[in-house]
């Protein structure tokens, strides 16, 4: 597929192996992938290079996923409208509620297979990569 239409995903997770697992799946499905280790770095990266989707963990150093999403939703367009997929080990009802309040579009509980990830990415990026 032509470079111009490839969609870009920012993976935000403090675990390096998780980022790598997602990156391999997303790149194989045709996406461009950027990485950030926490919410602060994600905001910094998005200000330099917007994405078509953010995949966000919850527990991360310095800025957790929900605080990041709230900050993202306060940014100017187009950043505020980037769809967000939360993928976390946290599975309590308070976490689902907090994710919704912070502006997440979907919430998956780990472990998430590479196939599930790319299915959601395709769904959330419209027609897919």
């Amino acid at each position, binding site marked *: 597929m032509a470079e111009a239409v490839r969609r870009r995903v920012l993976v935000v997770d403090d675990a390096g*192996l998780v980022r790598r697992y997602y990156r391999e799946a997303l790149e194989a499905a045709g996406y461009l992938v950027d990485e950030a280790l926490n919410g602060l770095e994600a905001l910094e990266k998005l200000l330099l290079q917007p994405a078509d989707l953010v995949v966000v963990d919850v527990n991360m150093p310095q800025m957790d996923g929900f605080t990041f999403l709230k900050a993202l939703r306060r940014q100017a367009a187009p950043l505020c409208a980037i769809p967000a997929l939360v993928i976390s080990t946290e599975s309590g009802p308070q976490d689902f509620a907090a994710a919704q309040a912070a502006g997440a579009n979907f919430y998956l509980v780990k472990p998430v297979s590479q196939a599930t990830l790319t299915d959601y990415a395709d769904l959330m990026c419209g027609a897919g990569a």
Partner: protein
Amino acid sequence: MPLIRRPSPAAPDPAAPAPAFTGGTAEERWAAARAAAGSAEAVPTLAAALATEPDMRVREAIFTSLALIDTDASVQAVLAHVRSDDAGMRTAALDALRAMPRRAGRHLPALLRDPDADVRILACDLCRSVAPPELHALLGPLLETEPEANVCAAAVEVLADGGGPDILPALSRCAARFGGDPFLAFSIRIAAARIAAQRCG
């Protein structure tokens, strides 16, 4: 030239009254939190303030003072928030524990056996500051018996960074226990490759 220079800065006045937490503005509560950094007696006050403080930045300053006080009581005050329902509070508590690695380290065995799997996952991440052989002593038994795949994955993440060759057998037994989990299989494959490379390197 309009560049100007003033006399040297004045030293802070040590006789100035200590600021208070209660009833003040966020700036005053921030000042109270920072002023407490030197005194172990302030831990109960800091702990109480933490429980009700609405401002993220004031909370950061309270956590910093607890980390600098660095006593068993101050660790306990921070640990109380590792299981908070608020993700921001959990993050702040873990960051504070990272700033007191030696004293927090003594609590790692208990945290890794916590009944709450979420706490065990966070405890694995705190093990990053530990080197082998202590790291293996902490995470090796977990790889053998931990029932939750997500906790094992958190342990593997840390071992991929800091683990040594002695941990390789436990990693492969863990992979066998969770044969159906593709992410854990992926993680253990990479962690083992990194550690094995280290052995020949």
